């Protein structure tokens, strides 16, 4: 009964967050409106990362490749093949899922530090491929999806992704779907098995669970969420560049998740939002803004060792998912 109450509270909290973000879409000033749309898409990226790192306990340093797979899958298919925005989005998501399956089958033969290194190496290969095939990708410079292509014709009406409100609401839509899916994963038997694997893989195996299959599923779910974020980024912001495949973009989601709280559903969003604004504000004052960011991170880790929501859950709100 207690658990049912916790479940009800959790669902209510998530719906309140989604409703709050929906309301903010109508009242935020133009600048913050754009920032929040971007943060929501990046939060989807970190929620995807959280499935693998937070729940299954697998530390990857290669998730930029899944984000970039979605980004390039959408961008290249729209620019070079002339596909529509929905088809481009689907291509991006499928590209990420297939890549995650391939990388997972190989990388999951390793564990711990080796897994981290192998995923980073795969990601570096992907990054170098985006530079090598510059005829298609235009390398560092990247591609811009023409404004006219970034929309969807619905009969007489056109949904223009470059319109700030449309962009915000589409970002919110994706964010809400992935957030509720993450909540579903966390509450499902699959999510529990992932946590069991994180706690003690051998013991989980001894209960009769195929831990490899479960970890592979986690990689695919995680990669698919990240690719969805990448594809949405391409469609909503129009830029497809190799920077998003660089190692920096593999470290970002790790930081965001650590800050917000690993294995919490809302932590990745909170971490992404916090980091985005800290960097944004600090860089307005000094070019050495990373120093300020670093100091703040140290303070946060000192007072919130399990991330903000991880610590809140441990100390006060046990029902928090």
């Amino acid at each position, binding site marked *: 009964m*207690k658990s049912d109450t916790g479940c009800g509270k959790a669902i209510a909290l998530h719906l309140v967050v989604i409703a709050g973000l929906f309301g903010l879409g109508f009242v935020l000033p133009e600048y913050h409106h754009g920032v929040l749309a971007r943060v929501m898409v990046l939060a989807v990226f970190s929620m995807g990362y959280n499935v693998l790192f937070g729940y299954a306990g697998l530390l990857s340093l290669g998730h930029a490749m899944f984000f970039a797979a979605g980004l390039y899958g959408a961008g290249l298919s729209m620019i070079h093949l002339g596909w529509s925005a929905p088809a481009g989005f689907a291509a991006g998501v499928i590209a990420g899922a297939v890549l995650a399956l391939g990388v997972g089958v190989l990388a999951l033969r390793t564990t711990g530090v080796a897994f981290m290194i192998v995923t980073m190496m795969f990601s570096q290969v992907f990054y170098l491929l985006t530079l090598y095939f510059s005829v298609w990708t235009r390398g560092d410079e990247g591609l811009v999806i023409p404004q006219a292509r970034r929309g969807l014709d619905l009969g007489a009406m056109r949904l223009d992704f470059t319109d700030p409100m449309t962009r915000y609401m589409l970002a919110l839509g994706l964010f809400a779907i992935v957030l509720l899916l993450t909540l579903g994963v966390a509450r499902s038997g699959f999510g*529990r098995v992932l*946590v*069991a694997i994180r*706690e003690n893989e051998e*013991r989980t195996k*001894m209960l*009769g*669970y195929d831990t490899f299959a479960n970890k592979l599923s986690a990689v695919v779910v995680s990669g698919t969420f990240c690719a969805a974020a990448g594809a949405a980024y391409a469609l909503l912001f129009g830029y497809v560049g190799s920077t998003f495949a660089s190692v920096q973009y593999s470290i970002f989601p790790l930081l965001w998740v650590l800050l917000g709280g690993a294995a919490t559903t809302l932590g990745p969003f909170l971490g992404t939002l916090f980091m985005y604004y800290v960097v944004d504000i600090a860089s307005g004052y000094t070019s050495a803004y990373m120093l300020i960011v670093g100091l703040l991170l140290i303070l946060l880790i000192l007072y919130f060792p399990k991330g903000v929501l991880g610590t809140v859950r441990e100390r006060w709100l046990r029902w928090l998912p």
Partner: protein
Amino acid sequence: MSAVLTLSGLDCFYGEVQVLHGLSLELNKGEVLCLLGRNGAGKSTTLKAIMGLVPAKAGSIRLGDRELTALAPHEVPKAGVAYVPQGRRLFAEMTVAENIEIGLMARGKGKPTRDRVLDLFPVLRQRLGQRSGTLSGGEQQMLAMARALCLEPEVLLLDEPTEGLMPSMIARIRETISSLRGEGVSTLLVEQRLEAVLSVADRVCFIENGRARETVRASSLRDNPELVRRYVGVG
């Protein structure tokens, strides 16, 4: 009595070092067979070999008619063998209820199994919402056994279940093992405490240097302390 688990000529290695040398033993239906021997004799390795955690280089492990050495480690529990390792190894961040649930999910068991398991360990009913890492040592051991029993195994492997527990808890664990016998569960027990062995085991198999040397009725050990002294060094 019919053998439910049969180990024949089992050879196991840790790297280059051979730990089990043609070990053979039989566990009968509904009996408690205790493996007794000095540290490093190969008792725990025998349990790990049954679970597939230490691969068998030679020999066979049969559960009824089914060869277990051909199975992946995660398939052994599904075949009907549950294992409670030394040191309990719970999912410390999960609650008692979640630990039990993950055991139930493994073989698709439901409420009747959950109720039966909690009836065996009533103290766990009062701790369902508590994080398992915060339980006392005895309660953790009970939870580890409860989780294993959620699989409704034919054979239960227990590695030193009374290690580090206070006497009242040891008595409770013994009672549970005895009641499992009544339900037809066969138990292969690794235990160091002679008193615990004498009170719960039907037979005792002495392991020395990775070989099963002698198997005797547990009741005969009281009259034969020399046997215990020879293989265990105490008595």
